[in-house]
């Protein structure tokens, strides 16, 4: 069972959360060239190791936030509010 550390509610059972995928993809400007849009919509780094990803605490505070999690072990390394960097050693 994974415990996901919500920045507001603390570590909670994974079933309270919905997964939002890779947090590093950035929406391009609306007039950006097409390849940038293809990149944004379809292409992913899909790292084998730490991944910065979005989670939604639907059965709790109902906030989106991001988590650094190792995809090889499922170990959660850190979590932070949207727009904030991961605090070193936290999580």
């Amino acid at each position: 069972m994974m415990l996901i550390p919500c920045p507001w509610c603390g570590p909670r059972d994974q079933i309270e959360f919905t997964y939002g995928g890779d947090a590093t993809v950035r929406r391009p400007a609306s007039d950006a060239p097409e390849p940038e849009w293809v990149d944004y919509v379809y292409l992913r780094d899909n790292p084998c190791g730490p991944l910065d990803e979005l989670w939604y605490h639907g059965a709790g505070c109902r906030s989106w936030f991001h988590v650094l999690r190792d995809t090889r072990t499922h170990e959660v390394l850190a979590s932070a509010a949207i727009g904030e960097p991961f605090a070193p050693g936290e999580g």
Partner: protein
Amino acid sequence: MRRDVRLVDRESRICENSAHLRHPGVDALKYSIFSLIGHALSRERWPLAWRSPEPAKHYDVVVIGGGGHGLATAYYLAKVHGIRNVAVLEKGWLGGGNTGRNTTIVRSNYHFEPNAHFYEYSLKLWESLSQELDFNVMYSPRGVLNLVHTPGEMDAAMRRGNAMRLNGIDAKFLSRDEIASWIPNLDCSPSSRFPILGGLLQPRGGTVRHDAVAWGYARAADALGVDIIQQCEVTGMRIEDGAVTGVRTTRGDIGAGKVGIAVAGYSSKVAEMAGIRLPIESHVLQAMVSEPIKPVLDTVVTSGAVHFYISQSDKGELVMGGDLDFYNSYAQRGNLPVIEDVVRACLALFPSFGRLRLMRTWGGIMDMTMDGSPIIGKLPVKNLYMTGGWCYGGFKATPASGYVHAWTIARDEPHPLNAKFTLERFAEGRTIDEKGAGPYPWAH
């Protein structure tokens, strides 16, 4: 009694520079009731089913990944295209990836034409694969029944069933009563937690013994001269002037005229070695078995509404599965919530199975694409090809995937059956999204 293996296809461009004779494959003993009795009486050792050669310096084609898809690719390269100077490189052991972890269901009950034709071709190959490979892969056409619980699902099932029939694929709609008399331990009462309105059956669907597929293709490919090299991880690619010329491995550098990638959940990692980003995410899918019991279920039952499917293995275990874990993973193991969901769905549909104990659970890494359909074809680096993006349904694709992947590698152009499964379809807006879920790989 060794047999010389020679290149047969003199016209193929690939073969021209490799007219040297390869070391012969093992003396491929014909498996039959007579050889079985003979060996039982004489107690002679069975010959190894394939060799374990040292990697050569160069191959016409290197196939990365010793799962069903990689081994089938090598087999059809040798068999159909006469390209026998081929190596399959596997980082672990044959079939140790998803091939040996899947729940063995084969079917071709798709709606969209590219999928329908491709999977139907695969099902046709399954029907005669044991004879083709001289290896019993235990194809069991016990039927695959998709349960229908709601009027909306009923419409969708009718539509899909009709599309299948128009494509020449067998499909049959069963009423609730027909299902109830066929599968007595399925709760078909109107008061059940998920009332059953009927079901869409593909009679020719069923199961195939997964390990036997890897072993059968390996043995047959080896007999044609293919080198199968286990414990050999590809760690990099040599690319010169925009063309791949070889791979780096944990057992040294190996030159290659062409390279085919068939690594399932590791597709992104291996493509990255050639500087290619894919529309793929890796996710974990779990499955589980009960303790073995006497025969109670002689078909495959699935429920899209409750995300559950079940069949009984020849050993007697009930084999069950459901959803992805819904987060990126390369761990080959999942978490308990999905197991609980699957078991709960099982008990709602088959209350009597509540007396059984769960014996084992495991997970495999799915190559989930952005439209839920595979990518089989040329990559943007010359002489580099892939078959991947199989999501959770790639076992049934194994023979056709190997067949068209080999074709694409040999001719440097796709077979009509994989012409639509290009990598470029995403940029071109030609996605094949059977479920209409959009670019969320874990939603397919």
